[in-house]
């Protein structure tokens, strides 16, 4: 049994609600989707019990009603597991994973800035990557956001 299948069977064995939610995309790529209510549990298990201790990055996606967050985790730098979760766009609040991955700070700030997801537990600091005077409630990476004044606007 390959390492990818090992991961699959270990996860489904531990969490039976993950049955059918795990895909092996290709060699060394596993994808897994979990609702946000179950996310902390699964995340904790992956990091602490299965040794997924390397966070490549966090991707944010706007899928209309919901905002998806994909945590790209890896145990050894070889296999990457895309751990997907989603929150409602109307009230996007997730817990920061900074206590576990210090490096997540900048990735989370990026998602907070560009997709407007509130990161609970993220320390106060500079915003990234938008400018300090960027208007509130404008999140450029959301699908319904269109650039205005782009042709002539330099300010």
């Amino acid at each position, binding site marked *: 049994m390959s390492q990818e299948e090992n991961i699959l069977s270990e996860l489904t064995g531990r969490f039976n609600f993950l049955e059918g939610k795990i895909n092996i*995309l*290709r060699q*060394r*790529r596993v*994808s897994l989707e979990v609702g946000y209510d179950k996310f902390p549990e699964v995340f904790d298990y992956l990091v602490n019990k299965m040794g997924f*201790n*390397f*966070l*490549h*990055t966090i*991707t*944010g*996606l*706007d899928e209309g009603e919901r905002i998806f967050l*994909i945590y*790209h985790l890896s145990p*050894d*730098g*070889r296999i*990457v597991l*895309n751990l997907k979760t989603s929150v409602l766009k109307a009230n996007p609040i997730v817990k920061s994973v900074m206590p576990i*991955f*210090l*490096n997540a*700070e*900048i*990735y989370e700030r990026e998602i907070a800035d*560009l997709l407007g997801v509130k990161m609970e537990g993220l320390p106060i600091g*500079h*915003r*990234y*990557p*938008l*400018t300090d*005077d*960027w*208007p509130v409630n404008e999140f*450029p*990476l959301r699908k319904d956001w269109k*650039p*205005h*004044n*782009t*042709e*002539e*606007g*330099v*300010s």
Partner: protein
Amino acid sequence: MHNSDEFRIPIGPQHPALKEPESFSIALKGEKILGVDIRLGYNHRGIEKACEERTYIQDMYLLERICGICSHSHSTCFVQAVEELASVQVPKRALYIRTLIAEFERIHSHFLWLGVAGHEIGFDTLLMYTWRDREIIMDILATLTGNRVNYGINTIGGVRRDITDDHKRQILEAMEKLEERINYYIQIATQETTIIKRLSGVGMLTYEEALKLDAVGPTARASGVARDVRKDDPYAAYGEIVFNVITDSHCDVYGRTVVRLKELLESLSIIRQLVNNIPEGPISVRVPRKIPAGEALSRYEAPRGEDVHYVRSNGTEKPDRVKVRAPTLANIQAVKQMLKDRQLADMPIVVAAIDPCFSCTDRMVAMKSEKGASVIKWQELRNYSIEWYKKHGVDFTELNKKLA
């Protein structure tokens, strides 16, 4: 600042030590650094958003322009993801050429870094020497691709230019020359006292810290973390090439220098293997404009570390989402760690030691618009500048009439 012995100095957004605008606000006590406050984002250009409104092939060229030094890294990384989505089998020869350019890029990037590092510690002679020798590789790149940077060699499904036997000969000759130079630099870096004095013990990042902070690339490898995407997740032709992952146990800037220098030798060996074993065949396959829906995560070992691209397609000819994580972003936390309790004099070299590429990290903002605030229109700005120069005696109106 008269009364307090602690004060902050701004390094950036514009400062001679930084080649790109980024702001480090440094709290100092005398010459000692107490803390660093990093503000990124000055180079935000909105590339990720822009990608969603362009076709895949346009995106490839756009993403190549994320960074001038690791341009091939970003374009290859993206192309790999798209090819995975379209499930095309890229011809072997194309993969070999991609790898070849990738290794050339690594060599020229590491040479560039060595020069910059020399400059940061006030050793300009090293800068002049390495940048002169870097021209050897730039010439090769220009011969192979037509460009010194932003090579534009990739296309979805292969590469755009083939290499000839004449090229192969030129490459092998250049490699001989480079090998001699690299050995010379290794000798300098390991024997010259002032260099060793300035580099060793500076910017410490222990093995545990490197793991905890998810450091990537030479920064991680100099702390003994054998993490290299080329080995861990072989892409392009790396699966068929024999090479070593260089690690070092110094954990400081000196270690990072050694790792980069040894990687240069490793790159030379990879290039020789590639040139000697390149298979015959086509260099590209046709890929339909519409890419089937799906998602792919592509990884690539850029000269600075692991580059990650996430591409999500929706069945049209434009991607739904492109996410880029450049290596420098992953190393930012490590810089904070490295600068703690160091001297101000160490700051430039410590920052330089991760080989930062801030343009890479700041990719995506669209134009800024501010409601209520005065927005100068482009035309107005242009007129303003013309008027300003008229007042100062530079007037092109007459000349324009003459020419028209």
